[in-house]
């Protein structure tokens, strides 16, 4: 995370011009870059800033250097009205996120920020918090640091909370409506009448619906804490109308107090709180319904993505591939390697020899693109791994399912050990690209981007598989071979080649699944073990040899699991699902959808 260059960074240019041409050039460049970044330069503001470091900056510096955290909090609170000075906001949020640093010499401590722009070695110019000037060494050359080498200025959670409150007050007038909304909700929770004028004035100019709703909610919630019964009761009713989940707790407490102490609160409060609480609770029940539906779909997508490769190799080809999970892990580790190549490089060992790969050192959008590339590359690597497995072992075992089970189990153990030797037995970290982090909210139901991505990805992969199987000549051949190998061979289909391609395709899908799951689960040597049971379960439940069956089984298992979980808990929910599947298979041993073909029945 980098801090945009503070406004005053560009002010140094005019001052230094007479001193030294070399430095001037550098300063002018900084000036130019800074103005590019910000898009505008206000020369008057710049001139003013040279004359005196702003008082806000002085207060801020004082706050950073204060030893006592209560004193720090007090100073931070003082800055409430400094929101228009963007450096204050930048510095505060940098402080909160650990991007503010201290230069400590024998007797001075200078807080500084790093310029957003880094050089080839990832180092950036240090800018003093007090006046935005670059820190210089004895020769007058700006000192550069790499954020990774520095220790940020410490904060405690209380202090961060105070910083957050101050930032929230700034945020009330942020250009981003989502930021405004979050800030309003946060401040509304505090039920502090001091904020009311801020909310009211904001409501005058606010145009975005969500933010307006949050403002109404915050105002009503603040008023609901009022001592005046008329104001209070109407505010409570209003909260009910707004279906404010955040205030439910407060309303219920108020209801309890009103019931216990009718003399103080009166009938009006009691009935108002009851009505409001009921409205909100009904709303929550609906929200839970939709939330559960989405979570069910999302879990189904995860299981489906993982099981689809197996639906091909086990379902269509009838090979019991116990190494399916490890093929997924191949894909997941591929994502890790691609991430390293795009980012800061990586280090691993191949049979005891350490291999060091240099990364591109990209950041931001270019780095985030690694994930898309990783999905494609993992399809290839896992497909190749599958190909190798098929050529060296499985092709000798096509008519011997029990042996193929044992052989592939052995392969899975070997692969796990190879992962341990190459990448270590601890999990590796695959970071989430920024477009997959976070979530959005519709009617208080949470939609996380990574979950949505997996749902979309599952649909895409199912579509891809359907396209391959039903619209291409390879698909036709695959289906022919799977239905009746001998007959297909007789009419000239090269069954060996088709087997090979099918298995490689199934493995490739597993690899993509692994890369995809690196976003929500751990990447480690035992990744495969975690999913293999679910995969087999879904394929068997859906009916071996039937893609539609696999899809419906995945959806069934996922949704049932999510419906049961809130009632029974994660452990008992899973047990119930497994027990239900066993009972179901007693009733219909061939699964949901039965594929009739001569070869399968034989």
């Amino acid at each position: 995370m980098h801090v945009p260059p503070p406004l005053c960074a560009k002010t140094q240019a005019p001052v230094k011009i007479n001193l030294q041409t070399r430095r001037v050039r550098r300063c002018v460049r900084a000036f130019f870059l800074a103005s590019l970044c910000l898009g505008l330069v206000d020369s008057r503001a710049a001139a003013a800033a040279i004359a005196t470091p702003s008082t806000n900056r002085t207060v801020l510096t004082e706050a950073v250097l204060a030893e006592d955290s209560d004193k720090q909090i007090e100073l931070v609170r003082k800055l409430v009205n400094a929101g228009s000075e963007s450096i204050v906001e930048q510095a505060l949020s940098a402080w909160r996120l650990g991007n503010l640093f201290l230069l400590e010499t024998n007797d001075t401590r200078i807080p500084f920020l790093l310029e957003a722009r880094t050089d080839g070695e990832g180092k950036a110019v240090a800018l003093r918090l007090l006046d935005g000037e670059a820190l210089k060494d004895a020769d007058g050359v700006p000192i550069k640091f790499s954020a990774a080498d520095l220790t940020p200025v410490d904060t405690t959670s209380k202090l961060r909370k105070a910083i957050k409150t101050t930032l929230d007050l700034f945020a009330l007038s942020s250009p981003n409506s989502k930021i405004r909304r979050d800030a309003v909700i946060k401040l509304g929770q505090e039920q502090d009448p001091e904020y009311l004028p801020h909310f009211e004035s904001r409501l005058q100019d606010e145009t975005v619906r969500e933010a307006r709703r949050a403002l109404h909610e915050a105002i009503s919630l603040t008023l609901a804490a009022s001592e005046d019964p008329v104001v209070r009761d109407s505010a409570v009713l209003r909260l009910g109308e707004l279906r404010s989940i955040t205030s439910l707790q407060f309303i219920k407490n108020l209801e309890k107090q009103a019931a216990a102490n009718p003399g103080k609160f009166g009938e009006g409060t009691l009935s108002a709180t009851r009505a409001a609480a009921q409205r909100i609770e009904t709303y929550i029940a609906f929200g839970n319904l939709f939330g559960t539906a989405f979570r069910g779909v999302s879990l189904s997508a995860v299981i489906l993505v993982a099981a689809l490769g197996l639906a091909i190799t086990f379902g269509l080809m009838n090979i019991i591939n116990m190494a399916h999970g490890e093929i997924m892990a191949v894909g997941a580790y591929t994502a890790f390697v691609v991430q390293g190549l795009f980012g800061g490089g990586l280090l691993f060992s191949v049979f005891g020899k350490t291999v060091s790969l240099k990364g591109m050192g990209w950041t931001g959008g270019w780095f985030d693109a690694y994930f898309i590339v990783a999905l494609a590359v993992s399809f290839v690597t896992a497909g190749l791994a599958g190909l190798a497995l098929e050529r060296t072992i499985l092709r000798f075992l096509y008519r011997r399912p029990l042996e193929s089970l044992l052989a592939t189990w052995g392969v899975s153990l070997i692969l796990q050990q190879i992962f341990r030797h190459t990448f270590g037995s601890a999990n590796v970290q695959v970071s989430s690209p920024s477009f997959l982090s976070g979530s959005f909210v519709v009617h208080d139901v949470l939609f996380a981007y990574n979950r949505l991505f997996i749902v979309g990805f599952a649909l895409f992969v199912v579509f891809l598989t359907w396209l391959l199987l039903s619209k291409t000549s390879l698909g036709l051949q695959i289906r022919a071979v799977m239905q009746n190998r001998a007959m297909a061979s007789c009419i000239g289909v090269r069954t060996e080649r088709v087997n090979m391609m099918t298995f490689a395709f199934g493995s490739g899908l597993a690899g993509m699944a692994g890369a995809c799951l690196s976003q929500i689960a751990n990447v480690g040597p035992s990744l495969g073990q975690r999913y293999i049971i679910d995969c087999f379960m879904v394929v068997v439940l859906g009916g071996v040899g039937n893609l539609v069956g696999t899809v419906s089984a995945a959806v069934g298992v996922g949704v049932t699991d999510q419906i049961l979980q809130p009632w029974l808990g994660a452990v008992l929910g899973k047990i119930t699902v497994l027990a239900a599947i066993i009972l179901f298979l007693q009733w219909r041993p061939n699964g949901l959808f039965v594929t009739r073909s001569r070869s399968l029945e034989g």
Partner: protein
Amino acid sequence: MKTRLNKIFATIAAIGLACVAHAAETVKVGVLHSLSGTMAISETSLKDVLLFTFDEINKSGGIKVGGKSVLIEPVVVDPASNWPLFAEKAEQLLVKDKVAAVFGCWTSVSRKSCLPVFEKENGLLFYPVQYEGEELSKNIFYTAEAVNQQAIPPVDYMLAEGKKKFYLLGSDYVYPRTTNKILKKYLKMKGIPDSDIEEIYTPFGHTDYQTIVASIKSFSAGGKACIISTLNGDTNVPFFKEFANAGLTSENCPVVSFSISEDEFRGLPAKQLVGHLGCWTYFMSIKTPENTKFVNDFLKWVKAPVVTGVSYNVSGVDPKGRVTCSPMNLSRMGVYLWKQAVEKAGTFNVDKVRTALIGQKFKGPVGEVVMQANHHLVNNVFIGETLASGQFKVIKTFNAVAGEPFSDKFLGK
């Protein structure tokens, strides 16, 4: 000529060896930690720190017993994360190797499985990892944090911070369940109604935290909520990822994790854990001369690991990215407490050492500990906030908290 020279050298060498052998009287000490299997990630670090401590003691002259100095000779066995194997390996250490003391075990189930062996053979086990209490064996010394040293202090801290709702989330096994049972009682004593306490467990290796995070989100919607997490190992990764994606932060809903120390951090995405809390009796970041020395010496040792003075070949020590953590510190202090007790008793006899251990004091890296008659330590407790570097910043210290294994003693029935 050549052969004669060789003979002379051989004789000299033999005399030299004899001298060494004579000077170095040794005592065998057992190390019972899983070096393979699921627990290896955590337990290997404890094996490393024990060997380091033996080396430290041997370098400074060993244990002084009856006017002689005795060097420690480690006997390292691998119970391979297999609980019944812990009992077998413990028996092997006590009966075959006749070790004077054993340092080991991580999970409660491994301790429970070898406890009968230690009682039958009258052995001595030092147990260094936070645990659920409700146990006291005369053959085990628990240098570990008891529940009132690790779980109660952060709850007190959260109550003092104005938190009114507690979400107890744990992996499904004995330590989280027992700890949460105690915590629930404690919270009720502190006036938190049942409706404001939620207790949820997930299986080992659980990856789908959607429902739980959604319920946390609505649980914490009214503010003043916090999470007490006893989630173990890598299940923390999907949990914290989901948690961060839902827009929850340490500011609106802090998580106190009991099972994440500096060592576990090596496999976790530190970015998503920043600001959440941990509670231990030791943090690597605490600045005292003793701790700086311990950390520096250990980091130096892992680069060239040896146990001075005995013919033991140290292997399997990873020199990269090492840290120290509370279980490691407690392991090390256990060795020193045992050494002092042996020196006081003047013998390795288990019964005498046991008596001598009670009341034994040791100035550890972050303060003095005292072994109490209930086989638990009086120790300082720290609450720390997680930093992006994977270290903790101490935000609250509780001095000299006396470990108490039985909850009815500190809850008062």
